[in-house]
Structures are given as C-alpha cells and as structure tokens.
C-alpha cells in the first residue's frame, strides 16, 4: 500500500530519528511512504499567531500538492502538522474560503485529501495484520502512552479518540504484548515549543509527566509527537539534574515499540540515537 507522506520540518531536522522509525516500521508493515514533492511549512505555531489567512494558506498549499500528486491519504506524523492540515481541510469546506485559497496557492483545491496521524495509519493496517506479524512480543513492557496536547485536540477539528481519555495507543500496544499503565498525564502539556523561549517551564511540566509515569509503574513512555520526544527525552538530563531521585525513563516513538514487536532492531528504528538509554 502506498500513502502520501508529509514530513514537516521536525522529521527532516531535529527529529529525523522519528522519520527513521516511522519509515522502518511502516515498511515492515507493507506501507510505502511517498513523500510529497515540494512540500512547504505547515505554519505550525507561528503562522496562526500572526495571520489567519497565512495559517490556512500554508497547509492548503500542501493539501493542493497532495491532490495534484494523486494522494487520497496523507500521513503527517507530527501532530502539529496533522492538526494544521486538518484545520485547513475543515475550512476548505466553505466555498468562499476554497476559492480565495485556491487563488493564493495557485493550485486547484478541494477538501478531498484525508489527513491521517500516525496512530490512524497503524489502525488502518488493522489489529489483525499487526498481530499476525508479531515476532517479538513486548513482554514485560509497561509503557505510559503519552498523547500530549495536540493528538486529540481541538476535538472538533481532529475528531480522534476521546479527547480527555484517549486509548488508541494502548489498544495497539496491547496487541504487541505490552501492558500499558493507567496514569494521569496522558493528555497533559509537556511545554512544547516553550522549550526555546522558556526552558524552565518545560522542565517543570515535563518533570511532572516523567514523575507521574514512574509513580504509576511505567517503565517507558511512548509518544507520537516529535516535540514531546524532544522535551521528555533530550531534556531528561536537565530534569534529572533538578531532581536526582528521578530514575531514567526511556521515551519511545509509537513506531519504535511496534517496530520492535514486529522484529526490527534498535539501529533500524533509530532508537540508538535517543538520549536516554537503558542497558
């Protein structure tokens, strides 16, 4: 199966380990990622703070490219990207907006491209298929599934899982043999982009998340967002310097764990490039 792929800035930059993991895992599951030609920035946090039209036009151009290149479905593994694309898609249902945007992006537009986040692509593979391919069941793994702020929000736009009590990652990981823990911080904020402007806040918030996962018996955290991974993994050293009692908590992308279960190794998945490692 072939599917359109929108990497966004993070997966080609600071979080290219995420891209490696996504590509390796999905390939093993029989999904070819077809990267969008000439994709541009989704607007992320910056555009919508400054200019509402720009915030729609940027993702709209990517959607127009996807349409032009014949993709019915578009995977955006970064939840910020997928949310921005979905938001633009929703706005394109309005004919007036569609005409205006079509003029700005200089491409024909409709709202026909289906934007998917990483979890939805795995759900599409189907639980049966994944179960069938399990090579190394994740016995003894007790992940805390961390959805962060954007995967389920805003609920009216993303329409994905229960916004306050999501369970889709848990369901997938149970199939892989893991025993996800029940914890309190699944949809808390990690501090996200504050990591640049106000690191103190991020360290405080991420600390709470790591401590909560530990208190509820988790032996790792699973994310499906590059920003969450940066704050929980890369910044974990800084957090531990503030609280020495905090044990090391490895942070995996969802595809890392699914990938391991279906027989991939750490190097193939890019896990060896994470900051926190446990022997």
């Amino acid at each position: 199966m072939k599917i359109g792929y929108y990497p966004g800035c993070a997966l080609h930059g600071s979080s290219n380990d995420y891209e490696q993991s996504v590509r390796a895992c999905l390939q093993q599951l029989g999904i070819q990622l077809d990267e969008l030609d000439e994709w541009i920035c989704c607007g992320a946090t910056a555009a919508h703070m400054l200019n509402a039209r720009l915030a729609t036009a940027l993702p709209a151009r990517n959607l127009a490219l996807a349409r032009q290149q014949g993709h019915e479905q578009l995977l955006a593994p970064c939840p910020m990207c997928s949310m921005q694309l979905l938001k633009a898609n929703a706005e394109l249902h309005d004919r007036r907006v569609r005409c205006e945007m079509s003029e700005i992006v200089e491409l024909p537009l409709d709202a026909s491209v289906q934007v998917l986040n990483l979890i939805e692509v795995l759900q599409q593979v189907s639980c049966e298929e994944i179960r069938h391919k399990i090579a190394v069941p994740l016995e003894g793994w007790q992940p805390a599934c961390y959805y962060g702020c954007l995967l389920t929000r805003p609920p009216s736009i993303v329409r994905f899982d229960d916004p306050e009590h999501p369970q889709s990652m848990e369901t997938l990981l149970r199939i892989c043999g893991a025993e996800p823990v029940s914890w309190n911080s699944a949809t808390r904020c990690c501090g996200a982009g504050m990591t640049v402007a106000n690191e103190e806040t991020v360290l405080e918030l991420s600390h709470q998340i790591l401590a909560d996962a530990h208190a509820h018996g988790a032996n790792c955290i699973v994310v499906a967002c590059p920003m969450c991974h940066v704050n929980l993994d890369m910044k974990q050293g800084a957090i531990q310097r503030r609280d020495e009692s905090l044990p090391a908590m490895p942070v995996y992308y969802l595809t890392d764990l699914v990938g391991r279960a279906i027989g991939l190794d750490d190097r193939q998945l890019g896990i060896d490039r994470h900051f926190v490692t446990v022997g």
Partner: protein
Amino acid sequence: MARIGVFTCWCGENIARTVDVQHVAEALAAEPGVVCSLAFKYMCSEPGQSLLSRKIAEERLDGLVVASCSPHMHLRTFRKAAETAGLNPYLVEMANIREQCSWVHHDRKLATDKAIELVRMSVAKVRHNQPLNPIRVPIVRRALVIGGGVAGIQAALDIADAGYRVVLVEREPSIGGKMAGLSETFPTLDCSQCILTPRMVDVAQHPHITLHTYSEVESVEGYLGSFRVTVRKKARYVDIDRCTGCGECWTSCPSGKNASEFDFGLGRRKAIYVPFPQAVPARPVIDAKACLKLTRNRCGVCLKKCQAGAINFEDQDQMIEEEVGAIVVATGYELYDIKARDAGSSVSGYGEYGYGRYADVIDSLQFERLASASGPTGGKIERPSDGREPKTVVFVSCVGSRDRAKGIPYCSKICCMVNAKHTMLYRHKVHDGEAHVFYMDVRAGGKNYDEFVRRAIEQDGARYHRGRVSEILEQDGKLLVRGIDTLAAVPLTIAADMVVLANAMVPARGVQQLAQKLNVGYDEHGFLSESHPKLRPVETNAAGVFVCGACQGPKDIPESVAQASAAAGKVLVMFARDHLTREPEIACIDQRSCSGCFTCLQACPYQAISRQEITDRAGQVLRYAAQVNPGLCMGCGTCVAVCRSKSADLAGFSEQQVYGMVESLA
C-alpha cells in the same frame, strides 16, 4: 342573496388609534351582500355580544364578520354568541385588524385602507361559508398509562379511583421506577420507599387497574376516544399467577454474579430474581442472558425447587390487545451516559472524570443505593473499591447539564437539591467526614428548597465551592479532584476517597420510538412536547395523548406527581362526557373525482387517509379511492395541497372560500 353583518371593533384605543373604524364600517356597508355594518367600542364585552345577537335576529343575518383581534383570542367567543342567537357558529369569521394592522402600522390613512381590504376579504370568505356541525366521536372509557414510576402510578390511581379502568404498562419487572431506588427525598428527608411502596401496593390491589409489568407498547392504532394498543409481554419464564413468591428459586439459583440493575451495578443478583424486596408484583423474573438453563441447557435448579410449578423455560413473548380511549405517557428519565462518546450520539462524555475507570467515581443514583437501607451495603456508606468508609467525598454538579460542549444545554433541575441531600445523608452517617460540592449556581427554587440547601451548608457543614471540576486523577489510592473556586479565584485540588457525579437527566431510552408510535412530538433532546408550555402543559398535539413526569422535561418528585394528577384530570374531563366532539374543519375527499393516486395518503402526517374500495351494485371492486378518517384528521390541509385531481377540500377553508378572498383583493 346573502345577508351579512360586519362588526368593526375599536378595541378601545388599540385599533381606533390607528384605524378609522367608523370609516371602515361605512366602507363595508357598501359591499354587496352586507346588510348591516357597525363599529363598536368593545365587541367582546357583554354589550358587544348582545348587539351581535340582536342584529342577527333583527336583520335575519346568515353570515357574520367581526373585525377585531386574532381569531386565537376571540373566535370562540363570537361563535358562541352567534350560536346562542340561533346562527350556526361556523358562519362567523373574523378579520384581524389589530395584530395584523393597527399594532404594526403608524400611518392612519394607509392602515385604514388595509383594514378595509382585510375585512372585505373576510366578507368574501363568509359568503361561501357552509353551516358545519361538530363531529361526535364515541369514547372508550378506559385509559392506558405507559410507565409505572411515581408519575404513572399517580395518574393510574387517580383515574382508577374515579371509577374508570386503567391499563398500566411497565417495561421493568416491577413498578416503582427511579423513586423506588432512592434512599430519602428532599426537602423533608422522607424515606422514599416508605411513601412509595404503599402506592405500589394500591396499584396491585386496585380492582380497576390491570397491570402489565415486563411489557412494552408494541403499536398504537386508532384515535382519540378509541385507540387499539398492542402490548408485548416479554417472556418472564415465571408464571406470576401460579408463583407464590416464596423465594425458594432465587435462594437456590447458583448464578449469582450478575450486576443488579436496581442497584446500578453496585450490587449483585441471581439469574432468577426479584428486583427488590418491595417489588410489585413480588414475583421473580429470569434473566435469559444469565440463566444457565436458558444459555447452556444446564442447571434447572429453580424448576426442581418450585413447589407451585411456576417456572416455564419454554415461555415466549406474548402480544396483548387493549382498547383504550386515552393514553398517559409517563416514561420518565435516566441519567446521561457519562462514558458515551460514539460518533452517532449528539452528546459526548467526560473522559476526564474517570467514570467507569475508577471504581470510586459513581453517579448520584448509585449514591442513593449506597445510602439506602435496602441497598447493597445496607445503608452504610462504603466505597465500592475496597469497602472502606470514605472520609472525604466530593459531589460534582452539572455533569452534562448546562454544558453545551457536551450537547446538553439545559438545566436538569433536580441536581442542586440532590447534592444538598447527599451531603446531608453522608454527614448524618459519617460524622467525621468532609463533604465538598462543586457547583455552577445553586438553583433551589421550590417550597422549602433553599432553606434545605442552607441547612446542608450551615448545620451539616457541607463545603460548597463555586466552580467546575477540570479532571479527576488517581494517585496513591486517592482521587485527586482538580477544580477551581471562582469566588476565591484559586485553583483547588481535593484528595477525595469517593466522588459522586450529578449526571444530567435525559429521557428514558426508547422514548422517541414510542413518541413516533403515538404521533407525539419531541424536542432535540428527546423530551416529549406539550401542546402549550403554559396553558396546555399535559396535553400533546396528538388528541387523547397526555404526558406527565420527566419524559416531558427534567422534574423532581413533587412536580411529577402534580403533573400526573393534572394528566389524570384531563383524562377524567374526557371520560365525563357522553361523547367527544371535534372541530368539523377537516378534510373531505370527493371520491367521484379521486383518481386513486394516494399522494395524500403518503403526505398525511396523521395517518388519517386510507384506501377505500369503490364497488358496483354487485359488490364487484371497480377502483380504489382515498377516504378521510374524521377521527384522525387534524385539518392541516396537506392533502388539499398535494391532490392532483383537486378532489380534496377542507371544510371551513374550502378552495372556493380561499379563492373568493384572493379575488376580493383584485
């Protein structure tokens, strides 16, 4: 030649200020067929009505137009006056020159011209009016009450006590409804069962009441005064006439781990069970999904134990036909499903409150069972997870209610009082316990209600925090309730042992399907619609069908009972008459020209049109034509609009009359 009288009303200043009524009267006097045209200060007053009667006699009038206010206001008044003077009331028409003229215009000249045209139109119509006679409908003096909660019980007893027969249909194995499961009731803290169970017994023993429990209304046909209702009696697997209620069966039944519906899952019951000790009828029912005999053809202990031979594993659903003249719907409510988050639902849940995940987060009906002496803990407040006595309990108001984001914009009305009651019940049983309430507003409108809430706060020490709860977390065996106190403007976290959510009231499941069977309207939330919110609060737009209790909107016990008695009163008003009369302004179909396309049959919203065979003398069927059932027709005129062969017409609003009105403007 017609002899029409026109009476133009001043309505004091209301009309006369803007419309030159004298000029209107003079202008109309010149109309063909008008033999007398007068203006009078108040036509609706006694002198006005006498004038009308006198002129009918003096001028031998055969048609009347009163130019005044809306027909909604006074058409009945003038028709009655005409009838007293010996004129058929349906020869009276009104021209509305107040709401549709004087009240909405300023220019006296233009308004007067418009008034003249309006009256002239009515004169054109009345020229073609035909004398009509009200339709007489025979009446079956027997009522059906659907729902055996406190409202249904009250309505059934009131009607039966007046000497008429009542059929009471209840879906569950026992009557009693939600009230039977409550511990105590506000604002007096009466024991709920103590006041309800004698009424339940009255129902069972009443010679005029036929009780069908574990039954549902399958279909309804017919009309006001004569409904044919099919009731499905679900297979109970126990013959309740033979059964003595000895209890041998349920004490010996080995399947004992089924969640008790009556205890809202907090207690367990057997596969053969009586929902609660005071159930009416006090006879067991077999849960076909849990019974080992019915699921796996094993066991059958109850059959062996039963001395009366009442167990019948071959039992099937039965259909029973009942003929009734009036129907009272009292299907009640249930609590909003806090976990609901399916795509098809218009409401969404509260994943952040952890209901269903944390055993110690319960809803208010579950708390009632915990506090009830007949409940699973015998009235001791114990938390469901480990049976410990909770020392800190948080009560959360408005879970769903008044939350547009969750799809329920309305106030559920009872929860403020329920919370206050729960804090009291809790503090009376756990003296060293802390009771916290998070609320939006305290809405305690009702006799002795606000005093009750003050008592909870001032005497029983309930701690009220004005604000919403954002989430409930679990940590170290405690429930962390995170919210805000907006009066103090501080975020608040309370480490609680138990949380009680006051979920919104929603109509009982299946009420929409029932409403469709009865042709009763309902709102977007599924609450049944009354005819008029103030003046016809228990009537519905389906003649002969009445509503009471929480199926019409959230209400507490006193209101439900009052409304039930009101509905019973309306039924008795009907039953007190020899026959029913209905307005004769209904459709009729000229079968000579009817082509039998039956577009009207599909268009009719009241199922009042049927096919009729047209036969020759020998009884040979020649063709089919449409026919209007005068008992069902509501006179809406939809059939007239869709009829292709112009065979349908509406008495009192005939095409001739309407075209006459239009032509008078030309």
